[in-house]
């Protein structure tokens, strides 16, 4: 959904939150002789603040155009009391701010806050969604600042700034310091070394030479022992546990070159401080890149974690309310959620009803009505009513916690191809050490040349340096994911490039993926079983989350009837009681299951509508067919083009849908798909994917993230369109943010290219070692030449990876 579409006839768009609504349910206000429309008084309030402060730039410059009503939440300043840092005159607070959508929000919040009298400074960190501000408590109260924020639709949260988040930030800083230091000293060292190299070939006065050598010793020391400390520590740990990893090889290479050079200062030989420093710097760069991309993905996660309150409201028998920390709450206890609160734990509603904003989990901006018996999830916000919730999950079992864990795991996992480098190190390191020792012994004992022996042994170690190997995968993945991210394709981990490249079959969900997912009603047939047919339909579908249901609701503008015992049968339809009569709306299969028998001529009508590619919903009242509604969902314009180009890439396309065979075939033939599996429920789709996998195909599933979650998880690669929140992140690895199907083609060509480049990088890095080692052992390769070779191979890997910058 995007606001580039003009609102439907009779509808207007809220000027603040872009929500579309019928004109008569909007609030309109005449300002400066012009009529402005708003969805609620909250939005009007925000607009007035923004407009009154002549900050209208906000509306022109914002770059997130997804409609969505802001959550106006009540804030309690007491929650923040423990976070305030004060030094008598000024106070400082660092809090988490929910509702920041793009850089314009950062701008707006900073502007409005810093204009408040008594606020000294206000800064919003876009990456972490945190705000820091300083104020004079005697001029302005914290409550005023917080209510200004919440009145604008940004919810200040006491930010559970967890230890792990702090640790990650500290680690990032430390890594930056180590890398920056290594970079600085290595550069200086290269300068000196260039002079020494020149001296080696042209001759150099001894005292200059000695001076340069001493300087390079001084310069390389911090690189090895400060910047390289993580490697040394890692190598030590690995050796103590009896293994040998990359760290051992790196440390060995760096330390041997360093030690040898120190010895040569006193005995008068060539130095290789530059080699030892370069090893550390390049490998550190690789690690830094890896950590950076992991952290980036983590910041969205941090925002998600902070949605969960740390305490729950419990209403006692005597009517009093107490706050209890989450870990003290057991399953089955009752907690209370008032409007504006976020739900602290998963549970079922025991009492009350409310519109709940679940956008953080589902990406769906329209609030969902929850009443007795409905499931509610931690982190979602109640907008309208009070709910009593019976807790069904411990804090670590909530859907939110599960999402967070999945994403964390995804971030921690390494690309399988990256594992090659690590596995290789396990036998590579001992082999190199053996070769170096062998070279040393052979040259000193057999050839009787101890100096040459040492030199060649170092040569072996230097030439085996895994710089290029360490950079090969992370660098290519970084450049690749960044380039593709700019196009609006989020790739959760580097390993996905591999699985995308191996994909042989792409499975599409029909509704919402190949089609626009916004069906409109074309035909309505009323068999006169009940009066007010449309009103009953719209009331029944009011709680449905299916696009077809929403279309029916949107077509009815009048009052809705009360539905009791509502239940949704996923993928089939809905049922409930209105005025004591049972109503069912859904697929023919559902009605058959419920014992409804349509007349033959009614079945013919259904068949005729289906042949036109329309989805038919049958409505029954008291087990009698009351009517049917036909809807058509238009195909996305670019679908045909995308299918054709995927076909050209050698991929097999399959369509899965819960819709009827005939409808599915019509849609499929329009976009060029021949293999159609129709009439599947969400689990059936997952089964279909599993069957494909068992038959040897590598499957990518493209769906909308919510209904297709099981199939997305089952597939080798899951791809969601249009949203990258909560459930989508949990069940899929790749998210396309701006709904353009052609990006799937881009994804394939790019992933294949990235994977090819990673393999080239690894081939080059290994191949260079294979070639250079024998030369080093036989003493043909002077250590200086091997140092130059080593640097060249790293540069080749870097250059090759940078080719991924352009799509």
């Amino acid at each position: 959904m995007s606001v580039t579409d003009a609102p439907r006839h009779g509808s207007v768009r809220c000027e603040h939150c872009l929500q579309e609504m019928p004109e008569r349910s909007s609030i309109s206000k005449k300002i400066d002789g012009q009529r402005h429309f708003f969805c609620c008084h909250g939005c009007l309030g925000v607009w007035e603040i923004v407009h009154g402060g002549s900050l209208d730039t906000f509306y022109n410059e914002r770059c997130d155009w997804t409609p969505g009503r802001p959550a106006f939440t009540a804030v309690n300043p007491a929650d923040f009391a423990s976070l305030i840092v004060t030094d008598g005159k000024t106070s400082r607070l660092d809090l988490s701010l929910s509702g920041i959508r793009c850089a314009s929000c950062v701008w707006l919040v900073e502007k409005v806050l810093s204009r408040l009298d008594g606020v000294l400074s206000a800064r919003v960190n876009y990456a972490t969604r945190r705000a820091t501000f300083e104020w004079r408590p005697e001029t302005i109260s914290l409550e005023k600042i917080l209510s200004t924020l919440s009145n604008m639709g940004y919810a200040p949260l006491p930010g559970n700034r967890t230890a792990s988040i702090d640790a990650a930030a500290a680690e990032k800083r430390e890594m930056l310091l180590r890398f920056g230091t290594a970079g600085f000293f290595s550069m200086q060292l290269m300068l000196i070394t260039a002079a020494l190299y020149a001296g080696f070939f042209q001759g150099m006065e001894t005292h200059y030479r000695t001076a340069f050598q001493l300087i390079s010793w001084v310069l390389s020391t911090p690189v090895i022992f400060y910047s390289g400390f993580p490697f040394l520590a890692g190598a030590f740990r690995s050796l103590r546990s009896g293994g040998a990893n990359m760290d051992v090889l790196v440390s060995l290479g760096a330390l041997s070159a360093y030690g040898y050079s120190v010895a040569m200062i006193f005995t008068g030989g060539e130095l290789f401080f530059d080699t030892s420093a370069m090893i550390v710097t390049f490998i550190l760069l690789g690690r830094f890149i890896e950590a950076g991309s992991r952290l980036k993905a983590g910041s969205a996660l941090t925002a998600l974690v902070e949605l969960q309150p740390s305490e729950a409201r419990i209403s006692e028998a005597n009517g009093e309310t107490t706050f209890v920390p989450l870990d003290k709450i057991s399953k089955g206890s009752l907690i209370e959620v008032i409007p504006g609160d976020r739900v602290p734990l998963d549970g079922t509603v025991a009492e009350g009803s409310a519109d709940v904003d679940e956008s953080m989990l589902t990406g769906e901006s329209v609030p969902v009505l929850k009443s007795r018996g409905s499931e509610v999830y931690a982190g979602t916000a109640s907008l309208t009513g009070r709910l009593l919730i019976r807790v069904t999950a411990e804090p670590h079992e909530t859907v939110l916690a599960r999402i967070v864990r999945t994403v964390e795991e995804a971030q921690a996992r390494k690309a399988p191809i990256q594992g090659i480098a690590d596995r290789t190190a396990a036998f590579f390191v001992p082999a190199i050490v053996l070769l170096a020792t062998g070279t040393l012994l052979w040259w000193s004992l057999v050839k009787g040349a101890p100096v040459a022996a040492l030199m060649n042994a170092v040569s072996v170690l230097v030439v085996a340096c895994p710089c290029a190997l360490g950079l090969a995968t992370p660098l290519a993945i970084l450049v690749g994911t960044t380039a593709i991210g700019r196009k609006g394709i989020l790739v959760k981990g580097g390993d996905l490039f591999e699985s995308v490249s191996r994909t042989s079959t792409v499975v599409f969900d029909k509704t919402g993926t190949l089609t626009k997912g916004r069906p409109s009603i074309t035909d309505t047939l009323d068999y006169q079983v009940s009066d007010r047919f449309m009103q009953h339909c719209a009331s029944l579908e009011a709680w449905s989350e299916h696009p077809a249901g929403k279309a029916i609701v949107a077509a009815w503008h009048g009052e809705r009837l009360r539905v009791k015992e509502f239940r949704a049968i996923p993928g089939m339809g809905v049922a409930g009681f209105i005025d004591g009569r049972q109503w069912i709306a859904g697929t023919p299969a559902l009605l058959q299951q419920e014992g409804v028998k349509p007349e033959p001529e009614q079945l013919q009508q259904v068949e005729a509508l289906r042949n036109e590619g329309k989805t038919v919903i049958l409505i029954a009242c008291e087990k009698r067919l009351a009517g049917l509604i036909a809807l058509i969902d238009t195909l996305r314009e670019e679908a045909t083009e995308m299918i054709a180009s995927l076909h050209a890439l050698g991929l097999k396309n399959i369509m899965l849908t819960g819709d009827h065979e005939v409808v599915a075939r019509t849609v499929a033939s329009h976009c060029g798909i021949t293999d159609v599996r129709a009439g599947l429920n969400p689990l059936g789709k997952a089964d279909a994917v599993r069957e494909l996998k068992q038959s040897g195909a590598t499957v990518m599933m493209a769906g909308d993230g919510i209904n297709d979650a099981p199939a997305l998880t089952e597939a080798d690669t899951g791809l969601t369109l249009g949203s990258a929140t909560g459930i989508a992140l949990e069940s899929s690895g790749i998210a396309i943010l701006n709904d353009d199907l052609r990006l799937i083609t881009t994804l394939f060509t790019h992933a294949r290219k990235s994977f090819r480049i990673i393999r080239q990088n690894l081939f080059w890095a290994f191949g260079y070692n294979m070639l250079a080692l024998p030369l080093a052992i036989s003493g043909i390769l002077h250590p200086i030449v091997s140092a130059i070779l080593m640097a060249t191979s790293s540069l080749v890997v870097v250059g090759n990876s940078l080719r991924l910058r352009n799509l």
Partner: protein
Amino acid sequence: MESTFYLIAIGFLFGLAGWLLFLWAVRSGQLDDIEATKYRILDDDDEKENSPKKKSEKVDK
């Protein structure tokens, strides 16, 4: 040769200054948020002037 030596020393001092600046930047949190900063340079500080209006006209075209 001697001048080269001095030049290298001067180069080192410049580099050292850069390194110290870098240390300060990291420690004081300058590099903590590199995302919003690039947008911030486009903001007009003199907001009481009519600059936002001008901007909006440009965008509208």
